């Protein structure tokens, strides 16, 4: 297998706000949210379609899988917009950095302050459960909702009030992922550890440490075999085949000089893109790397400002955002 990656810049836009998060719709359109509260919708080729200030400060953005809704999380709650950026619903009440649409796009899960809320696509609240501290991650496990907060992950049924399944961890969770095959849940934590649970197998837990700083970004490969994690300037990728990564050496991407801020797998799972505080957006092929031996990466773009987020469009373009308002698309072939 060759590790060669070719990349070509296809567009560049300025959203006039420090980019916090980007999301790509099924049809290639891009939603960008900024630290000063803006929501910008871009066409698939990077033209600004609409731009407006929607909150005092945005934290997260997510397109529904159906492509007709975009959800924005902010420091005071979340809002849902249609494709023309018209607001459909708003839910105020606290910090919202975690958003997740159900696989059919019919439901949106959000952490709002110390609660996890599930709403329908038109904004009707379907569920609300309270935790003792701020919900920092949400994810779907089939039709159930997993919510991370200090003390662990609670997994709820939306339609009934049965007790939550609890994936315990004594510490502050900052990021949550569920593997696409739903075997694994993993959290990135303030105490610079990665905690892993086998979903549905109580007590089967792993803890990976050795990170220099807190872990704020995690991404599972589409085939659920590899989990990429930030937590310092390296990208650390654990192999989840078989019984998981316990005792194994991770693959390490050593391309960034500062903290990794975002990670995203290509839709086909061959290429991993990363963004970093050093302004670099990089791409590499983890499957071609050797565990335990750090490798470099193809550098896609460097900007003087920190690169804050990265994602892939369904068509195979890497879309990244920077703190100086730049959003750029690259066509990447692995």
């Amino acid at each position: 297998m060759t590790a060669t990656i070719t990349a070509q810049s296809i567009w560049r836009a300025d959203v006039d706000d420090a980019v916090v998060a980007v999301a790509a719709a099924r049809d290639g359109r891009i939603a960008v949210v900024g630290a000063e509260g803006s929501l910008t919708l871009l066409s698939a080729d990077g033209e600004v379609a609409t731009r407006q200030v929607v909150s005092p400060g945005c934290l997260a953005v997510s397109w529904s899988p159906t492509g007709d809704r975009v959800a924005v999380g902010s420091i005071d709650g979340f809002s849902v917009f249609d494709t023309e950026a018209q607001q459909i619903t708003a839910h105020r009440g606290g910090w919202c950095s975690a958003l997740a649409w159900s696989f059919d796009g019919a439901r949106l899960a959000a952490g709002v302050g110390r609660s996890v809320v599930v709403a329908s696509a038109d904004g009707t609240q379907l569920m609300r459960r309270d935790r003792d501290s701020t919900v920092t991650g949400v994810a779907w496990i089939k039709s159930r909702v997993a919510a991370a907060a200090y003390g662990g992950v609670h997994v709820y049924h939306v339609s009934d009030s049965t007790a939550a399944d609890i994936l315990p961890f004594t510490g502050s969770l900052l990021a949550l992922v569920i593997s696409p095959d739903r075997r694994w849940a993993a959290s990135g934590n303030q105490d610079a550890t990665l905690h892993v649970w086998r979903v549905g197998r109580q007590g089967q837990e792993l803890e990976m440490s050795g990170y220099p700083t807190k872990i704020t970004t995690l991404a599972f490969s589409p085939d659920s075999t590899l989990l990429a994690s930030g937590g310092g300037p390296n990208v650390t990728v654990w192999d989840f085949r078989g019984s998981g990564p316990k005792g194994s050496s991770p693959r390490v991407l050593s391309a960034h000089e500062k903290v990794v801020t975002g990670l995203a797998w290509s839709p086909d799972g061959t290429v991993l893109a990363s963004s970093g505080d050093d302004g670099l957006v990089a791409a590499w092929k983890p499957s071609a790397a050797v565990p335990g031996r750090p490798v470099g990466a193809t550098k896609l773009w460097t900007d003087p400002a920190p690169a804050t987020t990265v994602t892939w469009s369904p068509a195979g373009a890497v879309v990244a955002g920077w703190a100086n308002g730049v959003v750029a698309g690259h066509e990447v072939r692995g």
Partner: protein
Amino acid sequence: MTTPTDERVPVTVITGFLGSGKTTLVNRILTEQHGRRIAVIENEFGEVGIDDALVLDAEEEIFEMNNGCICCTVRGDLIRILGALMRRRDRFDQILIETTGLADPAPVAQTFFVDDEIRDRLRLDAIVTMVDAAHVLEHLDEVKPDDVENEAVEQVAFADRMILNKVDLVDEPKLTAVESRLRSINSAAEIVRSQDAKVDLDRILDVGAFDLQRVLTDDPAFLEQTDHQHDQTVTSVGFQIDGDIDVDKLNDWLGELLGYRGVDIFRSKGILALENQSRQYVFQGVHMLFDGTEGREWRPDEPRTNRMVFIGRNLDRAELEAGFRGCLVNS
């Protein structure tokens, strides 16, 4: 003192009991023409909306970092909000954090030691404690159950500056008595008298945490203060000792001291002369956590005098001073 190379944004924490005048002070800082661009994090949304200021709401959320160690409690809400603030393009000259009246200052201060993102970009400049001249003695004297801290004592102990507010409501003998009591707890913090929270902002904003030099020079009594050994009273111990410090010995000693005495030692501060360093080393600790940065250059004609202060319970001056002397290069 401000480190010349330190470009981190200074953060001022304002504590004080309900009714002491915290909100008045914050509003005064926001409305006064001082040319600084300020972000305020407060527990209740204030009424004040100011062009040059950003006011953010926080809901106190305390958590433990290291599996239940009370010395390593931090404010999760502040980590998030300060992180979001630092992602904005507008640069603030100053960040203010207003705590609730009953807040323990330790988790707020410790937040600046344990989170790398915050430590790299922000500097805990000073903890400013508002004191109500008419009522503070009652609060300080309030007897609490054994396992409950007296928040008023903690807020005074943690202060880098104390604003003795409402001086118009009490007479001079009472003021002197209050100041004397405040100094018995924390002799390292300057006391600024005020009415209606009218304070020269240069004395509380971007002051460089603590000016030990001033305290230890102007108040020599502090250095000879009688000890309150083996009682639960919160006091301060300060000393100044000439000579160069061996960094390894210092780290060993502080690590051990704060490891086993960290619960009782609320704050530790120092300006130190490290061996082979032309700049001062400015040290500060909160319970078990400590950190240091380079300060200004030692002047050629200036004796290389180390100045150290501890504030806490059960402080043993002889033990602390002997331990510190053991860190000298030629000890």
